[in-house]
């Protein structure tokens, strides 16, 4: 069931209890987790934090902790599946789920006792009404009772009554069949597309605000959670802009203290500011030139993998009057005269080259003289840390490292994250260029398909879901307009990771149908697949089954 008052029904319930936090491996979940941890520290609520990377992990963690804990908080996992059936908990386990995955499973919505959803009821849900899906069992019992009665006493005298009763029975059965057919249709419509709702970090920030325990750190984490949804293309532009406006109100409320001239804060205090900044990834920590070459938006608009594209880029820079030497330097060392009006100058020139949205509304933070970061910088850095392909690090190790990087006291870790993010972006750019130039993208009828083989450089980087999804979206933008599926080989386990993303368009509602399609294709070909990720559009598949799986997918979607 949906929680009406998050303070009364969630926070005060767990106030004197011990809780388990099960957190999914994405940046929004990490931010939400940090906010919740900070709140729990304030009120000394004991908790245990367990990172979970997939459904199997979730099951194991639940089994390990169910004896000792009654309350489970699931962050960014668990809403889109029938949780009670999957975990088989005892009657006194209570689950609080704050998840951005939609559609929320109907059993989770209508269960009144054990599942509490920390989701706003009007959050773009469209849940079918109760009567359409669930039917009371009493009527069925009556039916079968009548039948057995009639079956056991067929006497001549009651034949006329029997006929009436038989007619009524047939009528009831027909109504039931109709109801079931309608139910199947409603459920199919409801569950066929997968998409995302409001950021979990924002939900928990609102809880903090209601408790008046919100701090600038929590606000910053909420902003990073929201930006993560935008960077990884999980929400529509409209929703992003609306949510930014909400965050802007909080930011102005927190910045109110800075206004006073006499009591201005020290430079070391954290300041969050609204920025209408460029869409060039990491440009303040890199050189402007590198950033333009490796950002998805600019690279695709210029088509930088072609010679023509390179020439256009040179023209673009010349048009703005930026000397190449300056532009290739580290951003911090560029001439002040160039940096002053940079954003306006770039916006003006980009309009000429067809890039209308080079600027985007976002937030930046700065504390101390050296430390200035934009929200998207933080997202890229933390994502790179979370999915770094170091040999010795298990997935929980990288989770811990990424979680640490979000604290202000671990700036070194953040900087190492930024370096990793730069490498990741360069790798993506190179792979995209090589895929397009060597025609690795095949058109399979209803979708485009690209397969990265074993010897491709940086393939280890792409065997992680978030990096792979970024690569897909980049490829798609570059190639544009069709929907897309992508596979990457993972040598150790002999499996392929397959990711599917929906068609790219300005007004797309980011609804992804690949989740269901993958399931059906796997069933029909009995391929050995592993649907372990919380996002249903990412699966692992045995290499041998790849071709028949693809064929099934093609027939399914055409």
């Amino acid at each position, binding site marked *: 069931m949906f929680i009406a008052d998050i303070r009364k029904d969630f926070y005060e319930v767990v106030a004197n209890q011990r809780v388990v936090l099960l957190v999914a491996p994405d940046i929004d979940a990490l931010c939400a987790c940090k906010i919740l941890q900070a709140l729990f*520290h304030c009120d000394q*609520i*004991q908790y*245990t*934090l*367990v990172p979970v990377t997939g459904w199997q992990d979730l099951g194991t963690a639940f089994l*390990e902790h169910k004896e000792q804990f009654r309350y489970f908080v699931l962050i960014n996992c668990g809403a889109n599946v029938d949780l009670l059936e999957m975990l088989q908990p005892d009657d006194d386990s209570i689950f609080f789920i704050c998840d951005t995955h939609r559609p929320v499973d109907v059993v989770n919505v209508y269960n009144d006792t054990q599942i509490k959803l920390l989701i706003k009821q009007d959050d773009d849900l469209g849940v079918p009404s109760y009567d359409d899906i669930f039917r009371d069992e009493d009527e069925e019992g009556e039916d079968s009772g009548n039948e057995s009665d009639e079956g056991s006493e067929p006497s001549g005298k009651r034949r006329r009554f029997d006929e009436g009763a038989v007619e009524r029975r047939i009528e009831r059965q027909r109504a039931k069949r109709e109801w079931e057919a309608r139910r199947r249709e409603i459920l199919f419509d409801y569950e066929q597309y997968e998409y995302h709702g409001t950021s979990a970090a924002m939900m928990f920030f609102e809880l903090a605000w209601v408790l008046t325990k919100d701090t600038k750190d929590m606000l910053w984490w909420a902003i990073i959670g929201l930006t993560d949804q935008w960077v990884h293309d999980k929400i529509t532009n409209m929703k992003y802009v609306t949510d930014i406006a909400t965050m802007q109100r909080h930011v102005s409320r927190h910045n109110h203290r800075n206004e006073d001239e006499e009591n201005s804060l020290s430079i070391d205090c954290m300041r969050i500011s609204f920025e209408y900044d460029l869409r060039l990834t990491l440009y303040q920590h890199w050189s402007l030139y590198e950033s333009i070459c490796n950002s998805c938006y600019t690279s695709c608009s210029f088509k930088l993998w072609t010679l023509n594209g390179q020439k256009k880029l040179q023209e673009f820079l010349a048009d703005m009057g930026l000397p190449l030497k300056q532009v290739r330097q580290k951003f911090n060392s560029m001439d002040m005269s160039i940096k002053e009006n940079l954003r306006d100058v770039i916006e003006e020139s980009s309009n000429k080259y067809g890039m209308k949205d080079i600027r985007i509304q976002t937030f930046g933070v700065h504390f101390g003289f050296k430390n200035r970061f934009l929200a998207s910088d933080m997202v890229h850095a933390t994502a790179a840390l979370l999915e770094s392909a170091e040999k010795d690090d298990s997935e*929980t190790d990288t989770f*811990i490292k990424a979680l640490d990087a979000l604290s202000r*006291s671990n700036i070194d870790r953040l900087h190492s994250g930024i370096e990793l993010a730069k490498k990741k972006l360069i790798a993506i750019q190179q792979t995209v260029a090589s895929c397009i130039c060597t025609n690795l993208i095949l058109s399979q009828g209803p979708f485009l398909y690209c397969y990265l083989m074993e010897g491709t450089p940086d393939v280890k980087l792409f065997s992680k879901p978030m990096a792979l999804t970024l690569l897909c979206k980049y490829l798609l933008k570059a190639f544009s307009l069709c929907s897309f599926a992508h596979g990457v080989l993972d040598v150790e386990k002999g499996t392929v990771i397959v990711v599917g993303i929906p068609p790219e368009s300005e007004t797309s509602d980011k609804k992804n149908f690949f989740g269901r399609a993958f399931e059906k294709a796997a069933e029909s070909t009995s391929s050995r697949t592993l649907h372990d990720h919380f996002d249903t559009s990412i699966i692992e598949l045995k290499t041998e089954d790849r071709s028949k799986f693809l064929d099934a997918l093609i027939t399914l979607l055409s």
Partner: protein
Amino acid sequence: MFCEKAIELIRELHRMSDGQLPAFNEDGLRQVLQEMEALYEQNQSDVNEAKSEGRAELIPSIKLRHCCLLRNQRCVTAYLYDRLLRIRALRWEYGSVLPANVRFHMCAEELQWFSQYKKSLASFMRSLGGDEGLDITQDMKPPKSLYIEVRCLKDHGEFEIDDGTVILLKKNSQHFLPRWKCELLIRQGVLEHVVS
């Protein structure tokens, strides 16, 4: 040369300067004691000879042997005392139950000393702070908060706290627990205090 063995003992302790307790060097100690006995015997006979026959030229060698005896005594007592100090520190580090490998390094008399030290410390702690006594081995540094966040560095299995609740300590899980329940594990290196 005389007193070499005794210096060996001291060097052994000096090598482990971080407070670890090396194994009790029975052999070394016995050799030093034997050397002392031999020196004493020689001195006895020489003194008797010097007294009875008036041989004054024996006096320097008697003096030398006497100095060696004193030196050996000093080294051996320093060795034993330093070990006792280390064992005392173990009580504060590990609590009242020592791990088996540490106990293995102590000789029988040291074990006895340890249990008596435990008893006196316990009775002292009981005498403080009213009825229940005060556990002064907790909170070696003034605590900043009642609860701390800890991260588990290795799989430790289940951990039971005073009020009966059990926590599963798995690698890389984080917990928010009362300070006094975690201190021992932090000292042992199973948990790590996370400062955010």
